[in-house]
């Protein structure tokens, strides 16, 4: 019988089951990632800019919530110019963070 709706997986992030392996590896290279307050200056200043969807703030959130494929997609546009590092008010080395994500990401782990 067709009830007219599908059973789709919940879009809620289940913090009990999120996979933080990539996040932990990035944390080891760029420990300041923990101090991100999500102010968005990095995104605002990003050279890759509005049309690319690149946002360091969102990448940090994505890897903290286990949404690795989304993070990889955004990072495709990063030019590594370093402006995000220059404006971060918490002094996070965002360039090192980005490189750490790029280095440790494995397609097989992405969801």
């Amino acid at each position, binding site marked *: 019988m067709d009830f007219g709706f599908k059973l789709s997986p919940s879009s809620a992030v289940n913090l009990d089951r999120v996979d933080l392996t990539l996040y932990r590896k990035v944390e080891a290279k760029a420990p300041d990632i923990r101090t991100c*307050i*999500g*102010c*968005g*200056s*990095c*995104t*605002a*200043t990003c050279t890759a*800019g*509005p049309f690319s969807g690149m*946002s360091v*703030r*969102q990448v940090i959130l994505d890897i903290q919530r286990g949404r690795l494929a989304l993070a990889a997609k955004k990072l495709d546009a990063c030019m590594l110019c370093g*402006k995000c590092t*220059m*404006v*971060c*008010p*918490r*002094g996070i080395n965002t360039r090192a963070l980005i490189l750490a994500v790029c280095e440790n990401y494995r397609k097989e782990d992405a969801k």
Partner: protein
Amino acid sequence: MKESVVIIGGGVAGMETAASLLSLGYAPILVEQSDHLGGHVASWHRLFPDMTPASVVVDGLKARLDGATVFLETGIQFINRLKDGYNVMLTNGVSILAKAIVLATGFNLFEARKKEEYGYGIYDRVISNRDLEAWFSSGIDDRVPDQPRSLGFVHCVGSRDVKAGNTQCSKVCCITAIKQAIEMKERFPDAEIYCFYMDLRLFGKKYEDFYINAQRDYGIHFIRGRVSEVAETIDGRVQVKAEDTLTGHPVRVTLDLLVLMSGIVCNPDIASVTKNVTLERDEDGFLRSRDNISSITESPRRGIFYAGTCTGPKTVPETLAEARSAALNVHQFLLSSAE
């Protein structure tokens, strides 16, 4: 013979301390390096939360200073520690022997010019919170256009920013931004006003009401996103780049006027005052009190007390309360040392 107490700094903290000490029967000597009393508050227009005119507060304090010795345009040359007190030498040649000193040296406003990406001093339509407050009082500032259709306020300029050299929150800029936004909306009801913030810190009495009013009655737009840079358009207006973090999209808007909320930083003149008598600084650059909970108006040194923003950002009522507390500390100290 009334006991002398030296109060360094003639802002509202110094004035209230002096007034309180007078009522306790002492002879306060107020030393102020500028040519007027009232410090920063004297240059402001209206104070939150009730929009009290700043002049009312300052004049009220001035009226209570009958009997206090006031030195204007005078600084401190040096302070020497004696066996039983201090010798304070003023730049006008007057030497004072006092058992107690109160430091009410206040704060400095962060130089907005240092955040070069915001264009203060480079673009015509970028001003600071201090400039706007002065415009409210005088009505004279070439940078403020006659009929602005859009205005922006940037929170946290020089605060919570390791690149600006100040990682602390300046406490009062959020409420000031909302206050000034409301005041601008009252003057220009058709203008669109945007507040760009990282967090909204509205902790005080009736502050949340301010926020609600700003949203409901004045239609001020609040965008959670720190401005990264400001550019100038061909017609001299300014364009602001930020990320609207709540929707996750970059946002851009062209404004007729941009106001930067400069933060509160430590007054560098303190260094010259405290050269001979070492008064420690805390990690945030402000003076370190004996204890941050139980004795915030006492310094670690015997006989020296603190009042007001020299120990950190605070509101005017908090400053006045500390000033009275410092006066009481002085009174208790002098009584106990007389025994």
